[in-house]
């Protein structure tokens, strides 16, 4: 049992110093005292409107990240009956984008984003007003079948995620947020949303259990205004034996996108398809994953975006890289202090 003894010894050696524990206690007290409860709420129109206001501020101020007075640009958000997607203050509201099956309606309610990233909000509603979910089922357990969201027919690389938000598991509605990030511009297209059943994950059996059976399919126009601010251009940093030139940094309340060029060309191995080779994984790390991207909020919180998805392609002796994606919460521009890429800081400040 020598191995087990060594396992325990190695873990025994993992400990904070007494000074670190004292620091930890002090930091805990400070954080507890300034804690404000953040509850993940359904992204209703009023919440999106608040983020939209600041997004409009940022865009209308131009490409330098300087913000103007909110009162100059605010406009109320209204529902609409037009046959086409309404675009009001940068948010797109698909109209008539819904389908009903088995007494449940799924609708695409709002889209927000920038040229390469979008967040789409869907609402699931039981039409007779009774509880949508069985007792005890909550949003972290849920998943959908089929495409499970919208296909934006991206003619390029893309990545994304989706999650559910259900403030009241006993009521008749549930919301799902889908994020999409691409390496080609994605606005002004037609999306096809398809869902094949709503399920819950049963950890004990490792299987999905149907919650609502049905098939929903509908199309809607993807049209919204780009809510991003563009920063930077030409700054350089060095790491891993290369010099990186930052081409562009885009920030919006829902997404961050960083484009940069490395001064050497990535060397891919001739591996067959299947599991990525160690050599290719190391190249991914050098060009993509090791480039640190940090978003600092005005309250001092730092969000580490270094592990986001992205793309890289060789280009005549250099490698052009893009990384970024949709944030997991909407952050109004006035709450973003700055973005740093490879240690280069881009502040975002209000006039």
């Amino acid at each position, binding site marked *: 049992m020598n191995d087990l003894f060594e396992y325990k010894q190695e873990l025994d050696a993992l400990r904070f110093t007494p000074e670190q524990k004292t620091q930890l206690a002090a930091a805990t007290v400070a954080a507890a005292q300034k804690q404000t409860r953040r509850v993940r709420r359904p992204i209703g129109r009023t919440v999106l409107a608040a983020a939209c206001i600041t997004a409009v501020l940022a865009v209308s101020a131009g490409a330098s990240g300087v913000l103007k007075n909110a009162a100059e640009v605010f406009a109320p958000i209204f529902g609409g009956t037009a046959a086409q997607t309404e675009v009001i203050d940068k948010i797109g509201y698909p109209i008539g984008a819904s389908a009903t099956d088995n007494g449940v309606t799924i609708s695409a309610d709002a889209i927000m984003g920038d040229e390469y990233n979008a967040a789409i909000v869907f609402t699931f509603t039981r039409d007779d007003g009774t509880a949508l979910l069985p007792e005890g089922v909550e949003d972290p357990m849920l998943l959908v079948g089929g495409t499970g969201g919208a296909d934006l027919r991206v003619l390029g690389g893309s990545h994304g995620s989706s999650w559910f938000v259900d403030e009241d598991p006993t009521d008749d509605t549930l919301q799902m947020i889908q994020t999409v990030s691409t390496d080609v511009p994605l606005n002004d297209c037609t999306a096809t949303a398809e869902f094949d059943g709503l399920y819950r994950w049963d950890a004990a059996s490792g299987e999905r259990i149907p919650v609502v059976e049905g098939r929903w399919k509908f199309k809607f126009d993807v049209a919204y205004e780009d809510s991003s601010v563009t920063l930077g251009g030409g700054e350089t940093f060095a790491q891993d034996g290369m010099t990186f030139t930052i081409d562009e940094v885009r920030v919006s309340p829902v997404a961050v996108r960083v484009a940069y060029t490395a001064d050497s060309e990535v060397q891919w191995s001739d591996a067959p398809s299947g599991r990525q080779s160690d050599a290719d994984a190391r190249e991914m790390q050098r060009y993509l994953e090791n480039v640190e991207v940090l978003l600092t909020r005005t309250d001092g*919180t730092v969000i580490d975006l270094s592990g986001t998805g992205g793309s890289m392609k060789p280009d005549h002796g250099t490698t052009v890289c893009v990384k970024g994606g949709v944030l997991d919460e909407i952050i109004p521009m006035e709450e973003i202090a700055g973005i740093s890429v490879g240690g280069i800081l881009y502040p975002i400040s209000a006039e």
Partner: protein
Amino acid sequence: MDQTQWAEYLAETYADAILRLSYTYLKNTHDAQDICQTVFVKLLTEPREFESREHERAYVLRMAANACKDLLKSPWRKRTCGLESCMEVPAPEAADGSLLAAVNDLPPHYRAVIYLYYYEGYQAAEIGAILGVPTATVHTRLVRGRARLRELLGGADYERSV
């Protein structure tokens, strides 16, 4: 106990256990401070009664496990400390061929049960309560985890009666 004393007690009593559990899940020590702070702040701002010290410890580990699982699920890592003030704790070496290296090759939910069973000394039912899974699931993960370790390490015996 005032907040400062309570925070000092939590850090003194549970910070190392949370550090080891977060290393087990995340295979790094960088996020341990965040995990500690997440757990401790919640205990300070939402105090609760515990039946015993053992109950308290199991509850703390459960909160830490949930915080680790949240980090694993999300591609966005939020740091609660600024870059300059983050505390660094060197990660173990996990030399090739060692049990720690082999455990690190297992999926996270196997690593967690192996750690709680062999290092913390919990029984399967207790591990199930900490991780929020049925006891049968813990048994399954222990069996599969041990089988995988045997493959990786070439036949060493890690059995112990449950």
